Structure formats: structure tokens, C-alpha cells
């Protein structure tokens, strides 16, 4: 029997929400790892019982948990993330050189083909990989050492590698995104990398051809069309049709094109979802109305999705890793807010319901389709 398991990372623990294929009645389990920031949880597409959780706080640093039974029980695995060689410096907020320092794992991306392999995006920005189920981690330092690293500077949330996308059609190709360095692509399994930021425009970067420096908030890709990616940037929603070699804007008629989260319908590669946020200082939806916007044309033309979402006095944010889609038919969409709510739609966004409303601040949402 089909069902879904929604993995929610929050500022004070993790929650697992489960339902059957109807997605109307939900069981809520948590808080797991109570009191810890759970930046991200994600399950392996090869073995859905294998789930990784990034648990961190300023007191005790990074811990990695792994479940082998779908989240019922957890063990700690390796938490040693060491940069290769002399890590050197990146830019600090004031432009001065600042040593590379590991702070936390922002995102796990399990391999599409091997349950023991998982990638980790870290702050300060770097890509790590484990091939033994998280027991040990090795940096893929070709990224940080590809040449532009010393120019990378942090966004307000830190210099974080927050997005990792694996190309299902090419095991050597991977995309990552860093705030505030931009997007990068590897075509050789992570040994070498190319900055893919041409076509991006940022008011604070006068050079239109700048190789790095754009604050990319999130990338999304439909697995059946791996050459096309969508991007939510610090202002602007963007699209590439050639693996990131060039980007063009698709903000179109959005009420505002600032935001964090972006995702693609599981069965419709041109159906894209964003949550517009008023501005880069006002991190809440315009007019106090929580609206998801959907484009069915791959961008430019957007419609507001509001049924079941609060349309007054709602001043929450939706963070970059806090939206996900399931693979059921009709596709389910889920997102979590900084106000502690997790909303779900079982009909591609036409209608929404709150699954839970009073969790701690939601940092991430992922969903596993089961059965």
C-alpha cells in the first residue's frame, strides 16, 4: 500500500510525519533529537529505510545520525568533516580574508544508485562524500580548489553549500549551489568543477559576466529532463535549458521574485512551485498572505495557490530546503514555515491543509514515497 513519509528538520529537533496514499490523516512522531538543530534529513532512494540526519548546534558541533529502519531508531555515524590540506581563506562579510572553518552540514544527498554513498554540503562551503554509510567523510576538494574559492563570501546565513543535485542520466554529473558564491557543475564525478552563473544578474555585482558571487538560494531539476534546472536566487527566478551554461529569468508575473524554496512537480517537468517572499529584508509573504505560486509553463506565467493557506496576518518564511514533492499520482507538495507549520497538498497544489501547525521553526522538509 502506498504512503508517504515526510521528514521535517526543525530548530529544536526532527519530526517524521506519515500518511497513506490519500494523505489526509497524519501520524506525527517527534521530536527526535530534541533540542538540537536538525538542518536536514533525507532518505536513500535505493533503500528508503536508510535516512541520514544532520544534527548540530553551537555548543556541541556536528553529529550525523543514521537510521536503517525508516526513522524508528537511530545510530550516530561519522562526524569528522576535515578540509583537505591547507584550506586557505575565503572572503568575510567585510571583504577581508577569513579562514575556512567547518561549522555544519546543511544538506545530505544520498546516491541514486548506492545506499552506502551519500554527499554532504557543508558550511563553510565544501562538498563531502561518504561511501561507507556515513562512517567516514572525504572532501571532494576539486570544488573548493577550482580557483574561485578565495573570492567566495558568505550570505547572511553563512557560506553554505545548500543544494546538491545528482543527474540521473549521467553518474558523473552533479550540480551544487552555494550562498553566496553561485552554482557549479561537475562532469567528472566531482574531480573538477565549473562555475555556471552566466546570465545571472545581481544588483550588488556590477560585472554582468562575474564568474561567482551570486547568492543562489536553491536549484531544482526534474529527473526526466536533467538539462533543465530552475533556480530561486536572491531576487529572480531563473531557468537554464543547457545544464547551467546559460540562465534566463522566468520571474514573469510573480508579485515578488525574492524567495528561498523552489521545486518541480514529480510528473510534469514544466510545472514549478515557488513561495514568493516580500523582500530581502522582509522575510515574509507579501500582504501577509501565504501563497505558493505555480507555473505550468516552465516559468513566466504564474498562478497563486491559496486554498487552505492563511490569507491574512501570516508573516512567516519558507526556507530553501523546506519544500518537497512526492511521487504519487496526484503529486503531493509539502512545505514548512519558520512559524512551525507544515502544509501539504495531495492535488498538485490546488488545495492545502496544515499537517502540523506548531512545530519549532522548520529548517527543512523532504518526503519519501513508500510502497
Amino acid at each position, binding site marked *: 500500500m502506498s504512503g508517504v513519509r515526510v521528514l521535517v528538520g526543525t530548530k529544536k529537533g526532527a519530526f517524521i510525519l506519515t500518511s497513506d496514499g490519500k494523505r489526509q490523516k497524519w501520524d506525527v512522531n517527534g521530536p527526535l533529537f530534541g533540542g538540537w538543530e536538525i538542518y536536514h534529513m533525507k532518505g536513500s532512494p535505493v533503500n528508503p529505510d536508510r535516512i541520514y540526519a544532520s544534527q548540530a*548546534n553551537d*555548543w*556541541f*558541533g*556536528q*553529529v550525523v545520525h543514521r537510521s536503517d529502519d525508516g526513522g524508528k531508531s537511530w545510530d550516530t555515524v561519522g*562526524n*569528522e568533516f*576535515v578540509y583537505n590540506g591547507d584550506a586557505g581563506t575565503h572572503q568575510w562579510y567585510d571583504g577581508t580574508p577569513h579562514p575556512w572553518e567547518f561549522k555544519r552540514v546543511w544538506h545530505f544527498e544520498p546516491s541514486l544508485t548506492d545506499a552506502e554513498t551519500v554527499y554532504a554540503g557543508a558550511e563553510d562551503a565544501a562538498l563531502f562524500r561518504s561511501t561507507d554509510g556515513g562512517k567516514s567523510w572525504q572532501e571532494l576538494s576539486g570544488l573548493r580548489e577550482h580557483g574561485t574559492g578565495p573570492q567566495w563570501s558568505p550570505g547572511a546565513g553563512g557560506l553554505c553549500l545548500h543544494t546538491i543535485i545528482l543527474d540521473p542520466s549521467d553518474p558523473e554529473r552533479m550540480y551544487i549551489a552555494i550562498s553566496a558564491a553561485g552554482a557549479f557543475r561537475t562532469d567528472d564525478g566531482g574531480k573538477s568543477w565549473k562555475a555556471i552563473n552566466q546570465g545571472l544578474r545581481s544588483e550588488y555585482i556590477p560585472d554582468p559576466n562575474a564568474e561567482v558571487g551570486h547568492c543562489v538560494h536553491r536549484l531544482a531539476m526534474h529527473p526526466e529532463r536533467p538539462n533543465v534546472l530552475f533556480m530561486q536566487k536572491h531576487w529572480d527566478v531563473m531557468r537554464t535549458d543547457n545544464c547551467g551554461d546559460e540562465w534566463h529569468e522566468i520571474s514573469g508575473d510573480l508579485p515578488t521574485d525574492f524567495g528561498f524554496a523552489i521545486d518541480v512537480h514529480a510528473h510534469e517537468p514544466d510545472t514549478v512551485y515557488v513561495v514568493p517572499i516580500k523582500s530581502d529584508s522582509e522575510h515574509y509573504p507579501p500582504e501577509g498572505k501565504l501563497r505558493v505560486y505555480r507555473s505550468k509553463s516552465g516559468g513566466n506565467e504564474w498562478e497563486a495557490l491559496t486554498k487552505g493557506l492563511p490569507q491574512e496576518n501570516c508573516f512567516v518564511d519558507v526556507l530553501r530546503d523546506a519544500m518537497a514533492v512526492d511521487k504519487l499520482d496526484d503529486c503531493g507538495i509539502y512545505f514548512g514555515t519558520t512559524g512551525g507549520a507544515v502544509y501539504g497538498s495531495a492535488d498538485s497544489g490546488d488545495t492545502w491543509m496544515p499537517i502540523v501547525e506548531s512545530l519549532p521553526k522548520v529548517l527543512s522538509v523532504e518526503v519519501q514515497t513508500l510502497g
Partner: protein
Amino acid sequence: MIRVTLPAHLRDLARSGPEVQVEVEGPVTQRAVLDALEAQYPVLRGTIRDHVTHKRRAYLRFFACKEDLSHESPDAPLPDPVASGAEPFMVIGAVAGG
């Protein structure tokens, strides 16, 4: 045996009670005690000291015998009551909600 008290989150990780006991061979120093603690509870590696530098994490302090030992050399002998097991070596987290 050296007694070590842990903050709540580390007890959860270590699946221990508020106090654990470790065996230290040779001089009883901060470094030796923490080496023994991490050997006995590998899950605590990186949570009290940085993996590479072994520097104390900034939001933690070390106390014993009512004294703050956080800024003492990690190789300085700990007070006799700690070495004898009469008093614990205390790992304390900053009192802040966050």
C-alpha cells in the same frame, strides 16, 4: 577511575547517566581525561573538542573543585581530588537557550 560529568545533550548522545567514569593511565590532565572519554564514547568525538585542533569548543567550559579550568593548559595536571576520584571533572555547556 576519573569521574566526568556531562551536560544533558552529551548524556543523550553517549546514552549515559549524568556522570561517567574513565580510566586514565599516566598523568591526569584535561587532554588525558578527554582522550579516555572519547575512546570510551566515540560518539563524543568532535562534540567537546575540535576534531583536528583538539581545542575546547567555544560554548563549553571545564570545571573542577569549584574552579574554572577552561583556560588552563590541556596538559597541566588536574587537581588531586579529580585524579583520586573524589571530585568530578565537569564539562559544562553555556547557559543559553539559543
